């Protein structure tokens, strides 16, 4: 060092640095990163907005206002003439709403002669109590003549009012609940008789025109059947088709054409598949309308290209050295594929399949065309029975006017999103689980 400093020149000559644009290059990089972060933040912002909007509107759907009062199963009302031993219809057709109304009226201290008051009380209880009380009595006829404590479903408007979703500052005539009913509601709540309970009904009930009794049970079963049909049909057909195309088919113009068409089919709007299903499965083959079987078949057609593309990519990604090793040992082509290539491609195939299934689960348009947009209140027992699907149920509820349906729409969206998240997490876990290194 000292040598250099005391060199003949005396000072260190600083070499002229070439300008190779370092600053410009780093500035460009910083700019690009800023664009990237901006794009990402924009996306995240909208995702957060979507989730916030859905969750903030929908979480109340998982709670249901109930009125818990002692209900007198009056023999006078249910079976005045004591005919229930001979006439089973008697217990089915009895005037159960009246029993419920009397019970709530008693709790509120509304006089029996106050017809207007009793009518207002009746409006506070859901009409679904008819079925609720009937089922209790049919299951256990012994309770006729006794008094039981029962949690009755509150009417949708009371439910909305109790959750604070109805603006009570507007004039009484312009809202669905009267001041009197709000007063009673508060009175019952203070007495501990009216309160929010976990809403199991939204998971198990079929559709209903009364929001408090409506649920996605039928839609869940319909969606489940369809997913099952898609999995059972699309996975084997898709994997077999891709193995043939990727490993066995000769590479010529014809297979090129098939490949191009498969890629194009993946981009065909889903409503076109609905039209195809309507024409082929319902009109030509005569399968029933609104059935999850037809829905499953249509979604299978729609999912096949996705699975084929994913499977072919997964097969392509298996290193050629593994094939060479197996072939070099004298394994036949079939053995090479089934013993070595397919197991290594499995994570990719499974991921593609689950993504395809998740896509099919959220698909609405084709189902509208094959008649799955129907009001179905009863559970389908087979895939041939009328049914709806989760996204279609959401679509139908979104068209309802009542306030209580708004939260249920969001609630159903939350359920759908949860299923999608579970499926995607499943895809990630499967990938991790089966991933092998070579």
């Amino acid at each position, binding site marked *: 060092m000292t040598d250099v400093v005391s060199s003949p020149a005396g000072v260190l000559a600083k070499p002229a640095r070439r300008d190779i644009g370092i600053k410009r290059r780093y500035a460009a990089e910083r700019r690009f990163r800023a664009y990237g972060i901006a794009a990402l933040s924009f996306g995240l912002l909208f995702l957060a907005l979507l989730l916030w909007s859905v969750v903030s509107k929908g979480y109340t759907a998982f709670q249901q206002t109930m009125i818990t009062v002692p209900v007198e199963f009056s023999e006078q009302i249910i079976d005045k003439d004591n005919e229930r031993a001979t006439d089973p219809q008697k217990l089915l057709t009895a005037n159960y709403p009246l029993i419920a109304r009397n019970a709530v009226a008693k709790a509120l201290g509304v006089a029996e002669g106050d017809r207007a008051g009793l009518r207002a009380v009746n409006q506070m209880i859901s009409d679904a109590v008819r079925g609720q009380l009937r089922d209790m009595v049919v299951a256990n006829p012994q309770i006729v003549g006794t008094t039981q404590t029962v949690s009755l479903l509150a009417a949708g408007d009371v439910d909305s009012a109790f959750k604070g979703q109805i603006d009570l500052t507007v004039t009484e005539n312009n809202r669905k609940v009267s001041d009197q009913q709000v007063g009673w509601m508060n009175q019952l709540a203070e007495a501990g008789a009216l309160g929010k309970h976990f809403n199991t009904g939204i998971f198990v009930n079929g559709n209903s025109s009364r929001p408090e009794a409506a649920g996605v049970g039928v839609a869940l079963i319909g969606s489940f059947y369809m997913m099952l049909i898609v999995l059972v049909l699309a996975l084997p057909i898709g994997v077999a088709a891709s193995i043939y195309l990727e490993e066995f088919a000769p590479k010529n113009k014809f297979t090129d054409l098939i490949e191009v068409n498969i890629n194009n089919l993946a981009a065909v709007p889903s409503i076109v598949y609905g039209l195809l299903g309507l024409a082929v499965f319902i009109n030509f083959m005569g399968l029933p309308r609104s059935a999850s079987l037809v829905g499953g078949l249509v979604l299978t057609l729609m999912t096949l290209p996705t699975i084929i593309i994913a499977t072919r990519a997964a097969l392509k990604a298996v290193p050629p050295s593994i094939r060479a090793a197996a*072939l070099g040992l004298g394994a036949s082509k079939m053995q090479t594929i089934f013993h070595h290539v397919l197991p290594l491609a499995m994570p990719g195939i499974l991921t593609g399949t689950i993504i395809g299934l998740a896509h099919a689960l959220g698909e609405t348009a084709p189902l509208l065309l094959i008649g799955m947009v129907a009001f179905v209140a009863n559970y389908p027992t087979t895939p041939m029975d009328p049914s709806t699907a989760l996204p279609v149920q959401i679509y139908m509820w979104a068209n309802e006017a009542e306030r209580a349906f708004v939260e249920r729409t969001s609630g159903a969206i939350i359920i759908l999103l949860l299923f999608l998240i579970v499926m995607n997490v499943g895809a990630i876990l499967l990938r991790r689980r089966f991933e092998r290194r070579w």
Partner: protein
Amino acid sequence: MNMLSEAAVEKALDKKMNEVAYKMIGKDVSVYYGEKRALFDVNLNVRENTVTALIGPSGCGKSTFLRTLNRMNDTIENCRVTGKITLDTDDIYDKEIDVVELRARVGMVFQKPNPFPKSIYENISYGPRIHGLARGKAEMDAIVEASLQRAGLWGEVKDRLHEGGTGLSGGQQQRLCIARAIAVSPEVILMDEPCSALDPIATAKVEELIHELRANYTIVIVTHSMQQAARVSQRTAMFHLGQLVEENDTDKMFTNPDDQRTQDYIMGRFG
């Protein structure tokens, strides 16, 4: 162990010195990749229980020739082979010969170690299993042990036979691949630059192994390393631009080759 096998090698050598037995005979072998011709009428005979090294600059067709010997070229689209190659007396491109059967008789070891992503045991047992060479687990265990013994890997892996074959070091993986190849008892073993991905110590081990395997197998090895060819082989064939330039005893090849191009290549003037 070492002494024994060396003695065996000597014995085999003595026996073969007197009469030349050809295991594989290539006659006018040409290979086309689509329109492009990669090999031009190669006539090359592979001697039994001998290590034959194929040398030559990159793209000269030595690997292509090697792969015609067990029809691995069949897997390449547009690849066409003309001429005649026999294994003993069988024309391997004859319609009568099944490629699966051929590859059970002519095994192959590749440039990059490519064990299956399975356990060491499964790697070795796969070949015998698909060819039905073992009846029962005891026989299979015996085949696995014998193959690993021959590949000189038994001592290193006997306690972890059921661990992944990909967890071994590069040199061990390559010896595993050799063990896998000999587990199906082939007659010929083809090696396509088996040491090019290995460090010098692992290379030395594989070379020693090749030397020992010679007593029982006919070996054809493609190599980029002239020293390796000189060390492991008895016969050397030099390829250039798709043509066989010269085939000779290795000693002669490296001291006094017949062809000027061989001389130049070995001296490092091209390639």
